[in-house]
């Protein structure tokens, strides 16, 4: 089938099957490989993207279900060369090592900050309950989200 997907602000027409997962369409048809597949039981969160502003697991959606919605992937978070505060904070706080879980973590964190602009540590951990990291031990990730929260509050124009 032929479907239209709106990704990172532009609309793309792609050829796929009914059973094509959203993550497959993003990675294979659109060549946006920043969204990753880390498991097959919908638990690791590496595939997290935004669907109409909400973090969802793109491995657990059909591409065709996303027709008509506005999708943001990790590639759409920066504005040109200017990184999103969450992206900057993850690096500054060393909240990534191998980087494989990082796009999903960043997408989940950005949504969490939209819902809780000044989150407690517990709210951050709860907000990242759907994301697994094997490298960092999470302490720096929580610090990164807190740092990003401050950055966004201090410069409202950064709120993406």
């Amino acid at each position, binding site marked *: *089938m032929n479907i239209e997907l709106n990704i990172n602000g532009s609309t793309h027409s792609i050829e796929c099957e*009914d*059973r094509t997962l959203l993550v497959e369409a993003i990675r294979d048809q659109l060549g946006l490989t920043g969204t990753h597949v880390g498991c*097959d039981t919908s638990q690791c969160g590496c595939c997290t993207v935004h669907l109409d502003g909400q973090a969802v*697991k793109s491995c*657990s959606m059909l591409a065709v279900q996303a027709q008509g919605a506005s999708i943001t992937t990790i590639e759409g978070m920066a504005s040109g060369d200017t990184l999103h505060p969450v992206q900057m904070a993850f690096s500054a706080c060393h909240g990534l090592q191998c980087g494989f879980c990082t796009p999903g973590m960043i997408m*989940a964190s950005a949504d969490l900050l939209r819902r809780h602009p000044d989150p407690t540590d517990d709210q951050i951990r709860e907000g990242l*309950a759907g994301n697994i990291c094997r490298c960092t031990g999470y302490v720096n990730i929580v610090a990164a989200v807190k740092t990003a929260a401050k950055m966004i509050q201090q410069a409202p124009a950064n709120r993406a």
Partner: protein
Amino acid sequence: MYPFTYVRATALADVAQRLKADPDAKLLAGGMTLLPTMKMRLAAPSALIDIGRLTELSGVSAEGDGLTIGAATRHAEVAADATVRSAIPALAELAQGIGDPQVRARGTLGGSVANSDPAADYPAAVLGLDATIITDRRSIPAGEFFKGLFTTALASDEIIRSIRFTRPVRAAYAKFAQPASGYAMAGVMVAQFPSGIRVAVTGAGPCVFRWTDAEAALNRQFSVESIQALSLDASGLNADLHADAAYRAQLVKVMAAQAVARLTGTAR
């Protein structure tokens, strides 16, 4: 996944017709249970009928002593909805504890209930809050809805439209999650109605059930001690890698006590 045909429904009547015509078709709302199962090739419906965007199936409305929630309403919506939070806060809290944020953005009430998944949270609310399942052809009281492991009273082509929860005097839900999957190893809804207490338990048995001993004890005296004095028969409870039946019985007690403690203000 095996191949199938995807259809996005535009009207409910349309859906019923399609289900009748194709007995191997399945409804797709959030897909949080169905799609992972299909990815493992453990389910192979011929068609998926996407009802996720049918406005007639989503939304919250309160009237009288009832709170009606559309079957395709997402967990995140239920958790955040002002009407739910004021009418039945326990229901919002239960929704807030399902899965993780990404799952809550997609998973729906109807999808969570239609499976009679022994580890899903909502069945405890449906049974505990004396809900009525409103389908495209009838209304089914909660007590008659859950039949057994992955078995409900629904006909194979019957569609849940909404669930009407009865507003309790007060209620609380406490859940103990399986550390890997996040599903309930024991989830207890304690609800107080003018007619008496209801205690519904999910995660511990093959199907959600009412813990009638606890209801009787709490009716006599609504306190944590009433729960602590009870023992729950472990035979008939689930046993798996993560918890044997004895431990599950313990968790049911502890979760029931936690729910009661929250309602009596003695929670720690």
